[in-house]
């Protein structure tokens, strides 16, 4: 469950004193992209990625979480920074049931060549494995976010560019999808699973892709379907049930993913998440993503396209 909360309004980082780097879209030599900053990706063992940030001049590694709402920071890191933890007006929840109801305000925050102050970050109640905090759409949505997993880079570009002229890394084939930016700033895309189209959230903070039973029912899968296998049941009276199912294809525009790994979760679980499907890193890592928040377009090529 990821809720937009009141403490953290949209957070925009100023460009530090440097000359932004112009890049040419591969098919539009007269229409440059302006690169604000380029950050190396660190691959977590589960396949998710984080980037280096500095908070109060200390170095940390923050998970790139397009499925989040606002920035968060680990409990240990907040303690280390010694910043006052303030009670938030409302709580923020994440998948896994962690409830966050305190936040800190930083004086100095930087992301590569971008710097800012006054970032409000919710404090995670427990330590997080492999990263120190999370970057969420409250910050990311002010840029074009280019995720080049195969080459280990996240680039942030200016949103001021010619419409559609962003494919700087390839002259080859690509897909462009219309995307909805929800009030929570989550990215919603149409995906077609086994021939039927549903909306999915693009969530780089999710290890794997997951679908509600409600959506599975729409696709013709029910709890009686022979291919549906119970993987685990958890929670009080085991109400939360997770299944595997052998979906055949997932399509995003003209991209077809064969045998996609999509877990089916009981509606109690996905009801808390608030969406019918989450597209997680198991699939996203195979692609090169360019998220044009302002343009509301989502560009995709294979991960190694050039």
């Amino acid at each position, binding site marked *: 469950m990821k809720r937009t909360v009141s403490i953290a309004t949209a957070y925009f980082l100023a460009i530090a004193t440097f000359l932004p780097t112009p890049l040419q879209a591969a098919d539009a030599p007269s229409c440059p992209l302006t690169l604000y900053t380029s950050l190396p990706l*660190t691959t977590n063992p589960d396949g998710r990625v984080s980037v280096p940030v500095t908070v109060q001049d200390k170095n940390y590694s923050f998970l790139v979480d397009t499925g989040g709402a606002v920035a968060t920071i680990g409990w240990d890191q907040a303690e*280390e920074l010694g910043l006052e933890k303030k009670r938030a007006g409302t709580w923020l929840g994440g998948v896994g049931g962690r409830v966050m109801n305190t936040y800190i305000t930083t004086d100095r925050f930087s992301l590569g060549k971008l710097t800012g102050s006054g970032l409000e970050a919710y404090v995670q109640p427990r330590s997080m494995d492999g990263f120190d905090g999370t970057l969420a759409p409250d910050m990311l949505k002010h840029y074009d976010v280019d995720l080049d997993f195969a080459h280990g880079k996240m680039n942030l570009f200016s949103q001021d560019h010619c419409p559609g002229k962003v494919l700087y890394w390839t002259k080859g084939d690509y*897909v462009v999808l219309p995307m909805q930016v929800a009030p929570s700033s989550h990215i919603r895309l149409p995906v077609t699973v086994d021939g039927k189209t549903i909306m999915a959230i693009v969530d780089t903070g999710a290890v794997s892709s997951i679908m509600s039973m409600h959506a599975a029912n729409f696709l013709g899968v029910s709890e009686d379907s022979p291919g549906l296998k119970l993987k685990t049941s958890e929670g009080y009276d085991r109400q939360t049930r997770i299944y595997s199912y052998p979906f055949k294809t997932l399509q995003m525009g003209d*991209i077809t993913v064969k045998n996609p790994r999509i877990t089916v979760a009981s509606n109690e679980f996905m009801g808390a998440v608030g969406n019918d499907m989450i597209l997680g890193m198991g699939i996203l890592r*195979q692609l090169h993503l360019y998220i044009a928040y302002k343009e509301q377009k989502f560009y995709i090529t*294979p991960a190694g396209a050039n």
Partner: protein
Amino acid sequence: MRKILFAAALLATSFTVAVGAGYDTLNVGIQYANDEAWDNAILWLGKALDAGDLLPDQARAAHYNRARAYAGSGRPGAAIPDFNAALAFTPDDVQILTERAFAYVADGHGDQALADLQKVHEKRPKNVRINFLIGLVNWTLGRPDDSARGFADITKDSRSDYAWLWLKLSDAKRKSETGDARAPLSTYYWPGPLVDLYRGKKDEARVLEDVKSYGDSQNCEAIFYIAEWRLVRGDRAGAKPMLQKAVNDCPKTSVEPLMAQQELGKLP
């Protein structure tokens, strides 16, 4: 706008995305590791490393995941070289140091585990989990006074019912009561039934009945903590089959099978 036509066959045997061979196979290996399909993870991560074209960060991730796969499949000795290789890229990585400590414990090198955890503790002195793990390693090294002191410190700073359980075990083992430990406030939530067992308010049968309304992982914990309770009270014969069940049934990435294996190794 150009239209495209390509197929990305993910996690299928026909893997066709056009990128370096190492990156493709790394992703397959990561997926197998996430599924805890350890043998396949070891196979594919080995292929990824052998391809020789991974970025340094990706090679670190491959070594780290292969180490986890070896450890998860009960081969901690084989995991340690891969943990070392991953740490060569990021020597102060808290998570890798912590997991290498687990492997050291499982491989019978408690002092090296303690050294790794102390290094993490210096970086994260207030991290409850690390302090908890240091307590567990002291327990496996047969130092109940040290483990009791560590668990007691945790209960003073935070509400950790598990630290309280281990404090009770440590106290029982060293036959001395820690007076100033903060007891759990409520036993409504898990591991409440175990807290009640250690307080003498419930018997084992009642705990095993209660746990049915929780999940598999709680059932596994119940068996393990009942076994530990039997051990400190001298019932080795009664503890042994439950420890074996914990080794067999608990998720391999959790603490309980590791600790159960250590206890079994000490029993005749």
